[in-house]
């Protein structure tokens, strides 16, 4: 009891152990698993990151079905910061998908803005709309995939029909 009393008394005058968060930033160590940044120039659109992501925080939307143009979308408020996407990305070494050691601010009065965070998050202004917009995107992304699959199928059919026709004209010629 007495020993504890002495210990407590010492604690009264020692340096505080706590950090004055949120007035001071909480220090992140080297190698902290923070935000995922993306570089579109380097991406080969292999979709591996989307497939591995456990909560589905990465979504590619096919905006132009005919040219297979895809847009990367990332939701930092859904991400669990596991880093699995960076592990599977074949272009990670070049810096296509990287995990930096800083964290983004919690969703308070403003939504973070950064070109490297993907398309959707940069379009939203009101923090209350993030969740709704993401739900809508999930549906849109799924539909765009179906549309793309349908388009591919049509193309294949067309090709086959053309080949058939070419064959027929060939046999006709003979």
């Amino acid at each position, binding site marked *: 009891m007495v020993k504890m009393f002495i210990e407590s008394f010492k604690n009264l005058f020692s340096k505080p*152990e706590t950090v004055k968060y949120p007035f001071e930033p909480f220090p992140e160590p080297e190698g902290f698993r923070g935000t995922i940044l993306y570089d579109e120039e380097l991406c080969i659109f292999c979709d591996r990151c989307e497939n591995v992501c456990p909560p589905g925080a990465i979504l590619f939307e096919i905006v132009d079905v005919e040219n297979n143009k895809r847009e990367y979308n990332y939701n930092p408020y859904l991400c669990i*910061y596991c880093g699995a996407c960076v592990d599977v990305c074949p272009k990670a070494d070049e810096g296509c998908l990287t995990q930096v050691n800083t964290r983004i601010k919690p969703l308070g009065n403003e939504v973070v803005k950064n070109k490297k965070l993907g398309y959707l998050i940069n379009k939203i202004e009101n923090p209350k709309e993030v969740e709704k917009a993401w739900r809508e995107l999930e549906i849109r992304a799924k539909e765009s995939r179906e549309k793309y699959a349908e388009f591919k199928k049509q193309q294949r059919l067309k090709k086959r029909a053309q080949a058939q026709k070419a064959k027929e004209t060939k046999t006709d010629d003979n």
Partner: protein
Amino acid sequence: MGNKIVVPFGSQHIALPEPVSFLFDTKNEIITDVRVDVGYVHRGIEKAAITKFEFTNVAYLLTRICGFCSITHAGGYHHGIEKLLDVEAPKRAEYIRLIITELDRIHSHMLANAHVAEVAGYENLFMQGVKDREIVMDLLENITGNRIQYDIYTIGGVRRDISKETAEYIKKQLNKLKDKVLKVYDFYDTDYTFGLKTKGISYISYDDAKKYNVVGPIARASGLATDARAEFDYLPYDELGFEVQTRTEGDVWARNIVRQMEVVHSIDLILRAIDNLPEGDIKVKYKGRPKGETFVRVEAPRGECFYYLKGNGTKVLERVRVRVPTYSNIPILKELFVGEKYSDAQPIVLSFDPCMSCTAR
């Protein structure tokens, strides 16, 4: 002699951050009966694991069962899936796994002990314990990149290496921690007021511990030397000279002391592991898909955690079953309350260090 009064403990209670409900029937402060409900945080994780996730990324889900022993679930799953895929992690990876597992045990035990001190009315000791615990949290953050969810396991190895500098840093910090832990150990051991609140409370005899199949520090505090680290071969504990820590008193106090002894022993284990860290790869490649069934026993901070995995050759597993230590300890917990004072209910619950997120999943 007094009427029967029902006193609820939970589902939200200030002493326990997790939702669990105990309804105590009391007569003159003495508990005569108790009803327990543990299902408040059921999240359907076992079902999600066999429907929504492939075996390559289901571990990220399973480790999020619990915030304390996420490494236990990572261990349970990965050792199992490695058996099914027939891969063996390199030695260096095994050592790194062991280091993280033991660091996790240290921080869990320190908080559990501090918590008991807090509900016994000894806030000072609580603060002292939690203050020292921060050293371990910083170490974990440094090695793995996160304080809680380490995600260091991967199939066939670990995801991050421990560099020379980090190894030195760990050693330095752990030596510092050891001094502090021994000091706090002394408080738990010799403090008079803390002893009054905890000695002789909720006694479990060796026979009872055996009969009710008690696991973890609670069993070891009653002299029952059960520890998956010694009984099941999953990490190189033998090589590092692991010893099961036991006491024979079987009360709240003994449980704290066992946990504190384990903290000290874990620090020794880690120091030895760092000194003998083998060179080599940290990861090997694996092929194929899981087929067949297997089980794994791993020692969580709270006791033995059991994993059962069944694969059918597809990407998605057919069954993932988890049985966590708290679940095995609930039957005896129920028995213990009867006859004790209501004011002792909190230390009793907290001395079991229950983890409801694990139990309900």
